[in-house]
């Protein structure tokens, strides 16, 4: 059973995931109509509380709220300021006192959404907490895979790149494993945590081995700020070894789909012709993100306090 918050995929059941995906299908229908808005959550208020820069996730949540007839405001906090525990909670309480029913939270530290969820009456939706989780991204990825492949159980799915620092990877590993997919992680040894081998996922350090016959290739953004910290020698070197090129993609199944959470570094982790090619579902991920976020807000609004 869903609780009032969506903190991570780790915390929710397969039934919850399935319910969210089914509900999202209904909202996707709405988004395809002339009138793309429903009165469902009229009179509610959502606040985007972002302690980290974000354009697409914030915009997606904002539009999802608007499509549900929920009022939404953006509360951006300068990233440079060090936010102390107490002032963080005060900020959240202030936002709640303004009448927020949903607090959509992004924070550079793992666990902050969990902390605030305990302090607040409002529904907290985790929009990314440090290297922990980014649950709505994993849900929209699952929705996209299901739509393209007809199901998730039994699929071979490769996740490529900086697994260690990626909340997208972590949420996807939780969700796709719960839904019965077989996961392979591909990347430099320095960017795949050792523990991953113990949770039953495949670990590969070369694309040539890892991509063989997969159904889905999920690329991660290489975070430029990690350059020069000893995780990989250089962007060029990374691209040469772990970039997705047409030759490498041809190792996957013929009907494999290519995903990327954005924003992409074209020519580094993914070749432009793949990003724009027939196997890419990258823009559909963006559209599906709206439907999934509408579904999450709809379902959380129904949870009794």
């Amino acid at each position: 059973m869903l609780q009032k918050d969506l903190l991570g995929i780790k915390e929710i059941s397969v039934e919850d995931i399935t319910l969210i995906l089914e509900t999202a299908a209904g909202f996707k229908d709405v988004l395809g109509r002339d009138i793309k808005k429903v009165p469902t959550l009229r009179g509610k208020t959502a606040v985007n509380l972002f302690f980290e820069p974000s354009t697409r996730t914030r915009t997606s949540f904002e539009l999802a709220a608007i499509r549900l007839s929920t009022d939404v405001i953006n509360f951006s906090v300068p990233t440079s300021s060090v936010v102390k525990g107490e002032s963080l909670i005060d900020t959240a309480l202030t936002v709640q006192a303004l009448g927020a029913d949903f607090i959509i939270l992004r924070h550079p530290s793992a666990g902050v959404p969990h902390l605030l969820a305990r302090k607040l009456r409002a529904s907290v939706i985790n929009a990314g907490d440090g290297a922990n989780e980014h649950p709505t991204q994993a849900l929209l990825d699952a929705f996209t895979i299901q739509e393209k492949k007809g199901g998730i159980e039994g699929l071979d799915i490769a996740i490529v790149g900086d697994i260690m620092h990626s909340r997208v990877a972590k949420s996807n590993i939780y969700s796709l494993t719960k839904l019965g997919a077989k996961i392979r992680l591909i990347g430099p040894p320095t960017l795949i945590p050792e523990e991953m081998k113990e949770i039953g996922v495949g670990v590969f350090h070369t694309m040539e081995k890892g991509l063989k016959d997969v159904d889905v290739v999920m690329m991660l953004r290489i975070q430029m700020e990690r350059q020069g910290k000893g995780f990989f020698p250089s962007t060029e070197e990374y691209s040469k070894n772990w970039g997705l090129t047409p030759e490498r993609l041809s190792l996957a199944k013929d009907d494999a789909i290519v995903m990327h959470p954005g924003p992409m570094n074209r020519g580094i982790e993914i070749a432009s012709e793949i990003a724009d090619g027939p196997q890419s579902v990258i823009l559909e991920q963006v559209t599906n993100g709206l439907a999934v976020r509408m579904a999450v807000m709809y379902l959380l609004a129904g949870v009794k306090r």
Partner: protein
Amino acid sequence: MPKELLNKKDIDRALTRMAHEIIEKNKGIERVCLVGIQRGGVHLAKRLASNIRGIEKREMPVGSLDIAFYRDDLSIRKEQALVRKTDVPFEVTDLKIILVDDVLFTGRSIRAAMDALMDLGRPATIQLAVLIDRGHRELPIKADFVGKNIPTSMSENVEVQLEEDGLEDRVILEKIV
């Protein structure tokens, strides 16, 4: 013990009469479409369409409408309504739409259905066909075609059971315990 109000024969007869009434009132079925409200209404809309086809020897478009996004009780329900498929495979603008539901009670589902329909276009008219009208309206809504009027008390529940859901066709009245 639930009390049986209608059996299979009664339901068939009521739907046959309603099919005739729909044709009579609309002077044929030119530009007339049926839209069933999820879930019970969808089955009944299909049955009405099949009856009408038998009389008029013409196909009639049938759609299904989910009203979860348009309900007015989201904040007071025990849990959120399941979202089912809305599938109206035609342009509703300028059509005569006949909404079909199994039980007409407070009228709130019909209000929601009309709003949902209006977001799909601008129908020429909206009419309402229900198998059971059990009274207790909370909104100024009235059915154009009724299978059977059944006076009930608020402490009773009317349930339409249909073969399409793997049950025997019947309508039952139960006390809410």
